[in-house]
């Protein structure tokens, strides 16, 4: 499953450019080929950009029939895709709930049976049941061999549903690989330490540069800012002072902390080079940060140029 979590302006620009809802001018240097190659790839790509908006006065079925006619999809696919997403499609679109609208959008995407499906914030505004439904649907599509790219700012969601992840900051690939590998490669960001004399232990560890937080009476949370945490160092420091730990548990980082670690220290100012690369007439934007999860990608790699997004063979 693929995913994409850029900052809002960059996401809108890229996804709009790719899907046609933004003007067909090269948005950035990385995606400038998209409008040119669009004829070759559009039949293989399905996308939901922002909130899906169909013709409100028509039923779901009517909306899909119109789309099918426009894109040359067989008419019988309408009933099939509606069935696939569990919609009857007879109600007017304006009466749909957010979840139903999202499901109709997925059905529309499936009309042409694309290889790549792009979801932009697919769970925005949905209730927990709707979120679960959409996540399940995305997983099912991925398990059927589709490549699913999810653009989401909810990193916990990305961690939960994605197979692989790519982290991009300021136009450069920061990390890429399976989610577990990415999480592990970041090392332990914190450890849970149980020690009888927690006051002295706090003094010792703080003096050594650790950040110490008291979780309960005898339990401390020990962490290091922007550095890997070596559990052996904690035991050695405490043992040297005659303090022996009764519990030392590493706390696994989540995707959010990995993202923050990888992008920490990156300036959010716009450089002269970035201003030059921005399209004319647009105000300066913050540089994008993206997390992208992809299926069947090799193991972790770091600090490389972005892959070609144009969709060209």
């Amino acid at each position, binding site marked *: 499953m693929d995913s994409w979590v850029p900052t809002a302006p960059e996401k809108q620009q890229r996804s709009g450019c790719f899907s046609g809802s933004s003007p067909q001018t090269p948005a950035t240097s990385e995606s400038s080929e998209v409008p040119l190659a669009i004829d070759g790839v559009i039949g293989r790509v399905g996308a939901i950009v922002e909130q899906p908006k169909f013709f409100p006065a028509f039923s779901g079925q009517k909306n899909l029939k119109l*789309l099918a006619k426009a894109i040359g999809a067989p008419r019988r696919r309408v009933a099939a895709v509606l069935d696939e997403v569990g919609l009857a499609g007879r109600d007017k679109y304006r009466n749909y709930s957010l979840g139903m609208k999202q499901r109709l959008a997925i059905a529309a995407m499936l009309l042409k049976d694309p290889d790549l499906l792009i979801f932009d914030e697919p769970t925005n505004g949905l209730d927990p049941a709707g979120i679960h439904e959409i996540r399940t649907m995305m997983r099912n599509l991925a398990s059927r061999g589709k490549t699913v790219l999810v653009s989401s700012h909810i990193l916990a969601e990305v961690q939960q549903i994605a197979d692989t992840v790519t982290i991009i900051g300021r136009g450069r690939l920061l990390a890429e690989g399976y989610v577990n590998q990415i999480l592990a490669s970041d090392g332990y960001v914190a450890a849970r330490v149980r020690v009888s004399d927690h006051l002295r232990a706090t003094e010792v560890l703080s003096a050594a540069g650790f950040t110490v937080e008291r979780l309960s009476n005898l339990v401390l949370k020990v962490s290091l800012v922007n550095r890997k945490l070596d559990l052996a160092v904690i035991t050695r420091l405490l043992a040297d002072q005659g303090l022996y730990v009764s519990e030392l548990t590493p706390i696994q980082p989540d995707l959010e902390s990995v993202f923050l670690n990888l992008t920490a220290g990156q300036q959010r100012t716009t450089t002269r080079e970035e201003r030059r690369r921005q399209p004319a007439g647009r105000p300066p934007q913050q540089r994008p940060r993206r997390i992208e999860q992809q299926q069947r990608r090799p193991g972790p790699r770091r600090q490389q140029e972005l892959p070609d997004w144009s969709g060209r063979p």
Partner: protein
Amino acid sequence: MTRLIWAEITRLLSRRLTGIAMILILLGVAGYQLVINDALSPPSGEERAAAERSYQQAHEDWAAGREQFEKECRDSGSLQDDCVIPEPTLVEFTGDPTPFKEAASTALKLSTLLVALVTFTIAASFIGAEYSSGSIINWLTFVPRRSHVFWSKLLAVVGFAALLGTLAATLVLSASLILARLHDSPVEAVPELAGLGVRGVLPVVVLAVLGFCVGLLTRHTAGAIGILLAVLVVCFIRIGALSSQSWAQRITPWTPDGNIAALIDRGYTYAVPVEKVTREGVAVELVESAVSLTHGLVYWSIILALVIMGSLLIFRHRDVI
């Protein structure tokens, strides 16, 4: 492209507003046929008897009071010609049926006006509703070729307008012919009237294209209708309140109403008031000029080309999100 045009035509015909507008046109045409029916029908026996009674009464009054009135009139210093009361005639009271050509011609022109205004609204709403509901974003997501999308929508509107204009003209002319036959009214100038009907399709298409482009530019149906109303108000002021102003009439060849009239009537004659100083004082003389059909065709071709190209350019480069 063909697929897209069919999809747009399907959407256009599926819209509720289109259905309502077509019913409105049908009602308008049918309503005016009642007026035509009345105009073509000769007076009934009862009407004729009532008219004869009125005529008799009027003639008696005229015969009884004529001499006294004329005498009083002459005594007051009026000219002889001004004091003559014409003798009433029976025709003045019974009224002749309107000739078929005149009745059908008026019906065709009115239906052209009605259909043109309705298609403007339909076309503006067709694209305006897409913008206001945001569904244009979704459409472009699935069909990301903006030029194709623009032309497919425009061609759908043009095809629909041409079809509607032709149907309305055919309906009006056919109904008028049937009514003329029913009332034994002499049918004449049918090819001329058919030509008027064909030419009437042009303003309908022109207004439909303008409606689409203005709706696209304003992104809202109400905005487009507002602009149309503003133009109509200006036109009415020019031909009404400013009819005595020479400059307001001289610009007729460059006005939309003058050129629409030239399309419908195969040329449009207008009068420009020109002041002339004579020995008695300043006299206003009306000098007739004309806007030819060719002028109207060239005028609208240029206007439409500019409006379409401008709209396409904006549609291609304007962000819809």
